[in-house]
């Protein structure tokens, strides 16, 4: 005899809610089977759009395949593509450009983002309005931002050059932010910082707001100065969030493509050619599919490996 007071299992509840014919079938399945039934479409979708392309890319990276020559004989080339990528000076140059871009964007965005978060956290009059204003660049499409800043940087009609002329007296048409070898790397750093500092600010703000007020009150009782409170309470307790902001921006900027492509297209020369632009050129302009697959795998492993090391460090900080 069934005990009506016992809670119904998931299968029973599903069977009760379903029409009689379906219910009979559902009752024959275990909870685990039902769970698999529900998640299998998602798993299949993930396999189709993530795992299969990854496996296919790995396979192609060991061949001489070129997408623009479908009739050519497919040959296994072993690790030759990986060796070519790792010994290609252009690839290393692109990695250096990427590293420069990564280092400065992360450093500047984290510092400014944390500073802004600290200010917004003061809850001054109208802070909600200013928070929204600060977040606007982040809400724009990178394509819009790229085109918009291309005009701002124009030496003859751009607002950026005119502003600098107004502030420094240097003639507006005497320098080109995106055309100069020295200035172009900084031009893309400025735009990325303008766009993504609000994101770092948001994460840091979450960190600052997670610090309980009683800790500051206790510090006040102990007569700790504001400066000491900042370095011994605010920074250490917000550190996991700051590190999270660094991780997210690091991963994003490692694969930065759209904004750089629109702003400088990797130029002048190859001055701002970040790794993703090199990869796109190899894959979809030169059609070296096998080579570019190897390059993509190397980039993937690099990001994945670095992110893993970083997450371990983050966990250590959190567990302190």
């Amino acid at each position, binding site marked *: 005899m069934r005990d009506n007071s016992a809670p119904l299992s998931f299968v029973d509840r599903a069977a009760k809610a379903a029409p009689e014919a379906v219910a009979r079938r559902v009752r024959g399945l275990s909870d685990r089977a039902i769970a698999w039934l529900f998640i299998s479409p998602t798993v299949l979708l993930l396999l189709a759009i993530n795992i299969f392309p990854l496996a296919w890319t790995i396979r192609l990276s060991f061949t001489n395949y070129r997408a623009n020559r*479908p009739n050519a004989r497919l040959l296994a080339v072993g690790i030759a593509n990986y060796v070519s990528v790792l010994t290609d000076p252009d690839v290393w140059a692109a990695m250096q450009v990427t590293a420069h871009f990564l280092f400065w964007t992360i450093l500047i965005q984290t510092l400014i983002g944390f500073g802004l978060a600290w200010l917004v956290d003061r809850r001054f009059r109208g802070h909600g309005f200013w928070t929204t204003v600060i977040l606007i660049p982040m809400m724009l499409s990178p394509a819009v931002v790229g085109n918009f800043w291309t005009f701002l940087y124009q030496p003859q009609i751009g607002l950026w050059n005119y502003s600098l002329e107004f502030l420094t007296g240097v003639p507006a048409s005497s*320098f080109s932010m995106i055309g100069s070898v020295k200035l172009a790397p900084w031009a893309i750093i400025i735009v990325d910082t303008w766009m993504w500092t609000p994101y770092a600010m948001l994460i840091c703000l979450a960190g600052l707001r997670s610090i309980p007020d009683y800790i500051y009150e206790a510090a006040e009782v102990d007569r700790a100065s504001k400066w000491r409170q900042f370095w011994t309470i605010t920074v250490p307790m917000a550190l996991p969030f700051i590190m999270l902001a660094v991780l997210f921006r690091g991963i994003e900027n490692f694969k930065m493509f759209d904004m750089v492509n629109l702003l400088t297209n990797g130029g002048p020369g190859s001055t701002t050619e970040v790794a993703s632009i090199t990869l796109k050129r190899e894959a979809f302009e030169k059609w070296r599919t096998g080579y570019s697959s190897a390059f993509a795998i190397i980039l993937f492993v690099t990001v994945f490996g670095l992110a893993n090391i970083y997450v371990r460090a983050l966990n250590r900080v959190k567990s302190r």
Partner: protein
Amino acid sequence: METLMARVSALAAVAMLAVAPSAQAQSKQLTLCWAAWDPANALVELSKDFTAKTGTQMKFEFVPWTSFADRFLNELNSKGKLCDLLIGDSQWIGGAAENGHYVKLNEFFDKNGIKMSDFMPARVLGYSEWPKNSPNYWALPAMGDAVGWTYRKDWFARPEIKAEFKKKYKRDLAPPKTYAELKEIAQFFQNRTIDGKKVYGAYIYTERGSEGITMGVTNVLYDWGFEYEDPKKPYHMKGFVNSPDAVKGLEFYKSLYDCCTAPGMTNAYMSEGLDAFKSGQVAMQMNFFAFWPGLYKEVGADKIGFFTNPAGPKGRFSQLGGQGISVVSYSPNRDAALEYIKWFAQPDVQKKWWALGGYSCHKAVLNDPGFPKSTPFAQDFLVSMGIVKDFWAEPSYAQLLLAMQKRVHDYVVAGKGTAKEALDSLVTDWEKVFKDDGKM
């Protein structure tokens, strides 16, 4: 009952017959793919005659030049059915022929009496043949084009400017005959104030992403003796691509870029040149003849003049532009597409093509005694088309092109290394491509 069935069947058959022609007419549609530029608008106008004659509707897919190659080479490589007809770049012909993207047209030409001898030989070689100099045709020459120059005729005609120029250079201010003269004129105009506005000497190609700077640099390098390979030994490039003369040519291009271009022109191609000229920013503009009809109308006869590429120390040449029209082999409308080619090849259609703003390659148009005077730039076009040279049309042209884009942009715009180093590196890059292709 049988009678009823018979009547219903008869009615159904009549209904089907009535509907069938209109359904067929509706399905007769061709898609023609090309770049989005002035001549494409002329082709839309011209194609209305084809629709009127055959009932086939024409649909057009025009893509801006900077993404033209990416878009349509992707389409061909993926065996897409978007384009029935494609006016593809001259350099695509090798890859498109060897990879089976284009329909070979020899048999069709023979069957329909279309003779390649009716078209100018340089265009047939550039736009239709693969392998080069062999009677294997993959396209009908559609749009002749080459790089030329425009200049501000009104500025050149101003008495005070003419007098100052003559005093400085001891010769009259006139369209340059040599690159040395061109540079002097460009230097003369650089940073000059005309009508209260600062102007600049010359506009030249510097675009990095697609083919821009290569088209500009080769256009100048040919005049300095640059060759792609040893004429006697195919794919042997050392001493030809990076010959001392070619090095001097590249140095000249950089010196022209450094001395005489407008600020910020570090990634500029066709449209930027047109804008710079139309807005009165530059005295001279390097660009393709294809734009001259539209520019002439827009800027006005009193302000714009034209000249062909000046001569360099080793001769006078011009970079070939232009395209042939091909039938895409994946098209489900191959017969209708071939019908369009047949119609387009007719001398009357070609004459109208030129009249609307397209550049015909047909001898019936170009050898017409009235042609040189038909527009202010027609004579220059004829001269230019007689001195054209083209970039590699090999199946690996994209790799060859991107290597050159990188090397020359690094040197000319970014100022990295020397001209010799740039061309030496280019030889290394190109040799690697040909070795990978098994041609070296």
